[in-house]
């Protein structure tokens, strides 16, 4: 079931506050955050977030296309990215 429209998109309150404050001042410092579930709002465009992936913070520069996605989608949590192409049989004596 999708989220009720009346509630609006979910953004962690403290994160929204930080971005709002920065937009007011006109600065765009990277924001460190654990809030992977926060939806990227149009106001976030041009900001950089350091999004936690469980181990480190990955830099995410927000572009216009990313609006509506969640921050966590841009910070992969798993490292396995394919087998080595070398054949295993030679290693077995």
């Amino acid at each position, binding site marked *: 079931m999708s989220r009720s429209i009346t509630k609006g998109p979910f953004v962690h309150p403290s994160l929204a506050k930080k971005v709002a404050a920065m937009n007011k001042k006109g600065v765009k410092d990277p924001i460190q955050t654990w809030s992977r579930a926060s939806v990227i709002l149009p106001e976030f465009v041009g900001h950089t977030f350091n999004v936690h992936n469980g181990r480190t913070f990955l830099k995410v520069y927000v572009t216009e296309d*990313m609006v509506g*996605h969640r921050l966590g*989608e841009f910070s*992969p949590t798993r490292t396995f990215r394919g087998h080595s192409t070398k054949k*295993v*049989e030679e290693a077995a004596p």
Partner: protein
Amino acid sequence: MPRLLGVDIPNEKRIEIALQYIYGVGPAVAKKVLKELAINPGVHAKDLKDDEIANIATYLEKNFPVEGALRRLTMQNVNRLKEIYCYRGLRHRRGLPVRGQRTRSNSRTRKGPRKTVANKKILRK
């Protein structure tokens, strides 16, 4: 045989069914088109009049993304996901299931034919 929207040549079936040979037209769209244009869905494709065929073609092109336009739209959406480096885009790049399905077994549609690793059993001994 009548030609509709370029390549598609629906055959000697009822028009309701024949329209579904067009990419982007399924049961729902086919029925809707015929209803809007007041064409009997039971008529065979070969019995359609020329102006009726022309009407169907223009109506479809105007109201639904169909054939090339639809394929382009889908490609654009996928490419957007790929370009912004989001999780779904990465799955598309790797040719793995995008919507959280398991990959330990199955997912053959996305992964393609099995790539068996030889001598796996001997290694374990």
